[in-house]
């Protein structure tokens, strides 16, 4: 099983994400933002958290136009698996792989703490290791985590069971308490909270490991 983690100037969760993939059993390669192709045979692409390109213009906007992101879009369009966490979620929405956008937190403050998330669906390789309705503790660390999509998009996400995680106590103003969403084919997950920071006993919690563990069962499609 092969995973690739994209590294942008300003990424700071890339190595944490690589360790989480490794602990789940993946061979991990780090891919630089200027590369225009993913390593051959990659099963899943991880787009990590951080502040790509200094978050200039909008979070994720410039990263979404980088050479590697075109390769990530092509990978997703071919039915490849991908996970975007925090800044990675912002980047995936900017590329159009996932719907909506992330706005400044409603309270205007950067928030860094562990929050309770409710597992909304187990119908994805990212969430099948949980039980629907499980409440898990996962850290958040963001200034722009306020998920926004128009009413029609939110209704479609709910109708299609594509809300992966929601906040039990909404910290940032996200519409419908949404913390993470799935693509239409359920193979791309974007989420603001950091499961890779709750994937080792040393982190103080392992509620995030299931996100990575279940992935090892996926079939190579890329």
């Amino acid at each position, binding site marked *: 099983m092969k995973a690739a983690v994209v590294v942008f100037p300003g990424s700071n969760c890339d190595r944490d994400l690589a360790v989480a993939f490794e602990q789940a059993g993946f061979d991990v390669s780090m891919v630089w933002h200027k590369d225009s192709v993913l390593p051959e045979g990659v099963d899943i692409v991880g787009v990590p958290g951080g502040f790509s390109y200094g978050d200039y*213009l*909008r979070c994720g*906007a*410039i990263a979404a*136009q980088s050479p590697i992101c075109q390769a990530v879009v092509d990978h997703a369009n071919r039915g490849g698996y991908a996970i975007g966490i925090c800044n990675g979620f912002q980047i995936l*929405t*900017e590329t159009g792989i996932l*719907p*909506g*956008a992330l*706005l*400044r*937190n*409603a*309270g*205007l403050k950067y928030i860094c703490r562990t929050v309770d998330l409710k597992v909304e669906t187990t119908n994805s390789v990212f969430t099948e290791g949980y039980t629907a309705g499980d409440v898990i503790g996962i850290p958040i660390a963001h200034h722009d985590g*306020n998920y*926004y*999509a*128009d009413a029609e998009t939110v209704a479609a996400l709910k109708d299609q069971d594509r809300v992966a995680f929601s906040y039990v106590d909404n910290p940032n*103003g996200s519409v419908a308490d949404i913390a993470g969403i799935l693509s239409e084919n359920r193979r791309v997950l974007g989420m603001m909270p950091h499961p890779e920071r709750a994937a080792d006993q040393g982190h103080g919690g392992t509620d995030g490991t299931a996100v990575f563990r279940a992935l090892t069962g996926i079939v190579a499609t890329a």
Partner: protein
Amino acid sequence: MKARVHVMLKNGVLDPQGEAVRHALGAMGFDKVEGVRQGKVIDLDLAAGATEADVTEMCEKLLANTVIESYSIEMV
């Protein structure tokens, strides 16, 4: 040749920064402010031959996120 692009959050999209500015103005005694929306102005220096259509393409692809933002272009 220059172009000026105005990018604003769409109506209906909450603007917490604008709200904070409105609160601050109210606290300073400016009691006639009923709303504040904050946006961006982007000035482009363009080579001869660049058209408004080029700038529109730039807005659609990068300068604005049309999921949450609207834009207007002034060619000057």
